[in-house]
């Protein structure tokens, strides 16, 4: 009887551990109702570029700010600055996209020295 009880406990423990491994690591829940803030970083960056481009169309800083708040970043202004500077330093995107980001960042009050050369041309 003791052996059976021991086997049951060992089985529960092993099964539990295996289940946790499967449920959290191997096959985690794929959420299909995800908010914008859960997007992977490359998509977050692309969303930021899109908002910067949208800003060139509507010139509405408040809307740009609200759209960026969906990303769940602490400070949307410094977020735009950071993305713009990262794009400039890593050349990860087209110059056109950098110009959009720089234009938005500068209008948000963060116009840093690396941005100046992209600011001369303004947003395309």
């Amino acid at each position, binding site marked *: 009887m003791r052996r059976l009880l021991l086997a049951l406990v060992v*089985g529960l423990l092993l*099964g*539990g551990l*295996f289940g946790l491994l*499967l449920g959290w690591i191997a096959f985690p829940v794929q959420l299909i*109702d*995800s908010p914008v803030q859960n997007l992977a970083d490359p998509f977050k960056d692309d969303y930021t570029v899109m908002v910067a*481009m949208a800003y060139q169309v509507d010139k509405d800083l408040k809307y740009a700010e609200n759209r960026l708040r969906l990303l769940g970043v602490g400070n949307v202004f410094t977020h735009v600055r950071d993305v713009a500077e990262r794009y400039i330093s890593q050349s990860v995107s087209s110059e056109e996209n950098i110009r959009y980001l720089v234009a938005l960042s500068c209008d948000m009050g963060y116009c840093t020295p690396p941005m100046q050369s992209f600011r001369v*041309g303004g947003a395309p």
Partner: protein
Amino acid sequence: MSISATQNTPKRKDSEGHAEHTRSGGTLVIITLMIGLLIGMGASLFYTWRVSPRVLTDTRPDQLSTTARIDYLIALSLAYAADQRLEAAASRLSDMNASWQEIADAACDLSRGGYASTNTGQLAIRAMVRLAESQGVRNCASSFIPAPTALPTDIPTEQPPTATRVPPPTKTAVPTLGVTYTPEPELPTPTPVPVGEYAVNVISFCDPNASGVLEIFVQAPDSAGLPAVAVEISDGINRDTIYTGLKPDRDPGYVDYEMGEDTEYTVGLRDARATERTRPLSAIACNVPNGGTARAGFRIFFKRVLE
């Protein structure tokens, strides 16, 4: 010998029974272990998938919630409105697993709600409709977009002077008959557009004598008017370029433009880089201070900033 034989038989039976007992006990232990494994795994899977799922923070746009999808669609449509790159819009749409129809449907829903009550919201809806229509998809929001109004066509055309009969020679001077042809004011000489940054300032006014007119002034840092500067006016679909300096009596850096009804215009300097455009301007109805109504006009100042 017979005694020992009789003694050995139960012993063998005992050991066989014990072995059988051990075998069946081992099977039972394995079965119990398996049951324990299954129960433990089931319980922890329930816990990890239902009670406390691990939230993935590296999701793709196709996993966005309905609300977030609409926000993403708005952003990509406005991005298309900015750069007109259809392949970029299609690629983003593909990331979302969305169709062109979904953009049109989202625009339709937005046009029925409070989102359409602001200029910025209307711009976004128009951008969505235009993107969807670029692929031939139309729906209820298509009617939300006013058809582009015809630009003013009453541009004064020069009347060719009619041939006049030569009067018989007389001693008295006879006034010239027919239309007198006055030479047009000389066009301002094109000067190189100063490259640099201009600050934009927009002031609205309501004047029945300048109803729905954009009055544009391009100025040097000392407020002197700059002639022959290309001013670009866009209604989102068409872009018109007009030049300052055609009304030098008003100001050398002045030019005006009559807005159509129900259309939003943005104004910018075509060649001057690093200059922002105005916010969307439309000739909405306004009340004249002394009574009566007119359409709103805007005085736009592009003043060059010293570098």
